[in-house]
Structures are given as structure tokens and as C-alpha cells.
């Protein structure tokens, strides 16, 4: 059954890649599928900004506290170690491991007990990490780690699209574009949150469902919302809230 699921996810991802696709949306779906396939609580993707700092570009949930936890790993935590060494980092019981005190305290506060980080590798370079969290302590078994690594590799491929990547400058161009798209989406979340009295996580959900239902690229719609050239009507807005 798990294999069928995995096959479905890989087919879904491959389909996305051949369409005209939005990289942030693609990575967001990938993190959601990680949660489903691996039976974990949360997943996030961090990319290097080419100034050797990791930045969050997508997460299975846009809850602010979760995003903060991912972002906390710009200077310590399993993702930093994974990024620096290019090796997976797996911690079955975070408090017992006694590493990264600040990160551990923050993760424990949000309710996470186990954490894993898998490298996004491009030949000899590491361009980011896939970060997995679970509320239950425990290791990921060999099979799940392999699936996780396969998904991290799919993320790398998706990020770099179908272009023949033989020069570092193209990687930089793609990474910088992805990071700027992420900023754009935050700006659009702010517009929607303010206009429709939502919290920012709900604003993201609204943006994403809008992109889905109108078959639009996430960043394109975000741009239109920030420009003010398009507006969105949240479901039930007319009846549930005063204007």
C-alpha cells in the first residue's frame, strides 16, 4: 500500500514538473506528501541563499510557530549540520540527544520529540535540506529514510527544473528566484490577512486555494494580489463577516 502511495506521489510530482509550474507550490505539495507518506507531523524545506545561510521556502503547514522553528536553524540545529556535512541527521529523541540547546528548547515547546534532516544534493554541492519533525520520539526506519531522501532529490530536481545544470550560476539564479518568490508570497499573505481579517496561515490557505481553483501559478497570483490588480473573495466572507 505504501508503495502504491509512493508511486502516486512520484507520478503527481512528475506531472507537476512537466506543466508550467510554480516552484513554491511544488515544494509546498512535496512537504505535504512527506507528512502523509512518512507518517510524521511536519516537514519543511530549507535552501541556501548562496550566502551560506539556510532559508525556509516551503512547509507542510504555514503556522507561524512552525515556520519560526524551521527558520531558527539558520545557525544551529539538525538542518545546519546536515547542510554542512551533506549527510542525513536523525535524532530519535531530541531532549535526550542533548544537542543544539536553543533549537531543542524551541522544538520541544512546539511539541516535537524527533527530528530528521536529509540533504538536497546536487553532485558535490549541498543546496538545502529537507527537515522532518515528529511529535512522537523514534527513528525513521531504513525504508522511510530512503523515501525521504528520494523526495528530497525530487525537490532538488523540481527546483532546478528540467534545465541542464552544469554551471553553478544557474543554480544560483534558481535559488535566488525561489527565495524571492517566498518573499513575494509573504507579502501577499500580509495583504490578504489585512484585507480579510485572517491570520497569516489562513491567508496562505486562501492564496493557495485561489491559485488551485483558477489554475494559476501561486507566485503569479501573489504578484497580482500585491499589485492590487486582483482581489480574492474568501469563501463565506460575505455572510460571516462585516465588510
Amino acid at each position: 500500500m505504501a508503495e502504491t502511495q509512493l508511486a502516486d506521489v512520484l507520478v503527481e510530482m512528475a506531472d507537476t514538473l512537466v506543466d508550467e509550474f510554480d516552484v513554491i507550490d511544488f515544494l509546498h505539495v512535496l512537504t505535504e506528501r512527506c507528512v502523509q507518506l512518512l507518517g510524521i507531523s511536519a516537514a519543511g524545506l530549507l535552501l541556501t541563499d548562496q550566502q551560506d545561510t539556510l532559508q525556509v521556502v516551503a512547509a507542510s503547514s504555514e503556522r507561524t510557530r512552525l515556520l519560526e522553528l524551521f527558520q531558527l536553524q539558520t545557525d544551529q540545529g539538525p538542518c545546519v549540520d546536515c547542510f554542512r556535512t551533506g549527510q542525513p541527521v536523525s535524532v530519535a529523541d531530541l531532549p535526550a540527544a542533548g544537542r543544539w540547546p536553543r533549537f531543542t528548547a524551541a522544538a520541544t515547546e512546539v511539541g516535537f520529540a524527533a527530528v530528521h534532516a536529509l540533504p538536497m544534493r546536487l553532485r558535490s554541492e549541498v543546496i538545502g535540506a529537507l527537515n522532518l519533525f515528529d511529535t512522537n520520539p523514534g527513528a525513521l526506519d531504513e525504508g522511510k529514510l530512503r523515501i525521504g531522501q528520494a523526495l528530497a532529490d525530487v525537490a532538488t530536481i523540481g527546483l532546478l527544473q528540467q534545465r541542464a545544470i552544469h554551471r553553478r550560476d544557474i543554480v544560483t539564479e534558481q535559488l535566488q528566484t525561489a527565495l524571492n518568490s517566498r518573499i513575494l508570497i509573504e507579502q501577499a499573505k500580509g495583504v490578504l490577512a489585512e484585507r480579510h481579517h485572517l491570520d497569516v496561515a489562513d491567508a496562505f490557505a486562501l492564496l493557495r486555494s485561489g491559485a488551485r481553483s483558477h489554475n494559476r501559478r501561486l507566485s503569479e497570483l501573489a504578484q497580482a494580489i500585491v499589485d492590487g490588480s486582483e482581489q480574492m473573495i474568501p469563501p463565506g466572507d460575505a455572510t460571516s463577516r462585516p465588510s
Partner: protein
Amino acid sequence: MVLSFGSAVFGWGGAMNADRSMRLWSLAVEHAHGRPVTIEHVCAAVISAAGVDSAAVTVMLSATPRETIYTSDQVASDLEELTLTLGEGPCVDAFAGSPALVADLAAPDCLARWPVFAPAAAQAGVRAMFALPVQVGAIRLGVMCLYRVQPGDLDRGQLSDALVSADTACALLLDKAQRDPARGDGRWPEQSGPHHPEVHQATGMIIVQLGVTAAVALVRLRAYAYAHDRRLRDVAGDVVARRLRFAPDADGDQGRGCS
């Protein structure tokens, strides 16, 4: 001012970035010789840090035509003129949002991509050029272009220095919109990278609160932080938590607290 170099501008976000950014800013301050730091000095700093020969910054706001606000020498002026005349080239591509890094303008793929610009640029004596967007999400201010006589890639450190310099130029331009002449206190302009999403969320909220463009919203947010001597991300956090609203009023840039 409380915030000086290397102070609490950064918390848990990008310590290495901060070092690089501070180093480049110090270099720009040196080039300014006690005068306010401007784009010119940021360009002088990046020319030496990234090992290039010339630099230019062009601003392209949708309301105005493309305007080159600084060129370091005649070669940079000529190349900017060429871009403007031909309407193609790495600088045009970079304005669409991605850096365009060109190790050799005489390479076949470059000649195919920019059939008119690439040979003309090589003719003008430039073999490598690196065009970096000056932008924050939807806010596209312009492009920083670096030119080099010798072909070849920037190495990793040079590329990072170039990217940080483009962000510094962006912060300077945003702040200049609010305060002219440029600040004279040598204070480092806090940059708006991806590591503080609340800054961008707050920008979006201020767009709606003031009915302004994203660029103006970010300018207002930055001006408020500057005027109140607070970190940008702390002020942004207040906006996102709805402890602070910006209201259009006489002074324009005064956010009014409401609790």
C-alpha cells in the same frame, strides 16, 4: 543611535550573512570618506570585493522610464546605454527577477540568448557581466550590473558579496525615498531578506492599511523603524500581531499605535 555596526541588528538569523554584510558596509563607509554612504560607495565596495572592473545601478519603477542612477566608469555607461538602446541583455533579464550571471559573453549560448547585445558588449571590451535584481519580493526597484574585462565566473565568495551588495543597494534606495539627503550617520541599512517573513507580511498589511504600493509600504515601515530607533523586524512583528497600524495622515509616515 543605538544600532551601530555589529550590534543587535541580527538575532538568530544569518550570522554569517551579517558578517559579510557588515564587512561590505564598512568598505562602503571607507569609500565614502566621512560623507553619507550612497550607491556610489556601495558600487566601489563591490568592485573591489567581487573583483570586477565596473558597476552600474539602474532603477526601473513602473511609473518612470528606466533610469541609470550610477555608473562607475565609461565602460559601465556604454554598456548601460547599449542595454537601453537594444532592449536586451542580462540587465533586462535580471529585471524579470532572477540574477543573470554571464561568465563569457563570447560563448555560443550567450550569443544565442542575446544575439545583438552579446557581440556589442564584447566589442566594447566586456567579457563577463553579472546582473543582479535589486528587489524585495514583488518590489522590483532595478538592477545592479557588474562588468569585467576578463571572462570567468565569480567565485562563491565574490558571488555572495555581489548578492549582499545588491541587497544593500536596495535598502539604501528604499531609505533614500524617505530621507533625502541620504543619512549621514553611517548607520547600516537593515536589509529585508527572506529570514524575517514578518517584515514582508507587515509590508502586505500596510499596503491595505494605507492604500499604497508595496514599495511605499516598505518605505513607510522602514522609516517608522528608523524614526523610533527600533529594529525593522520588531516593528513588523507589531504590525503582524496587530499591535500597530499605519494610518494615512498628514505626515504620511507616522504609524499610529492602537492597542
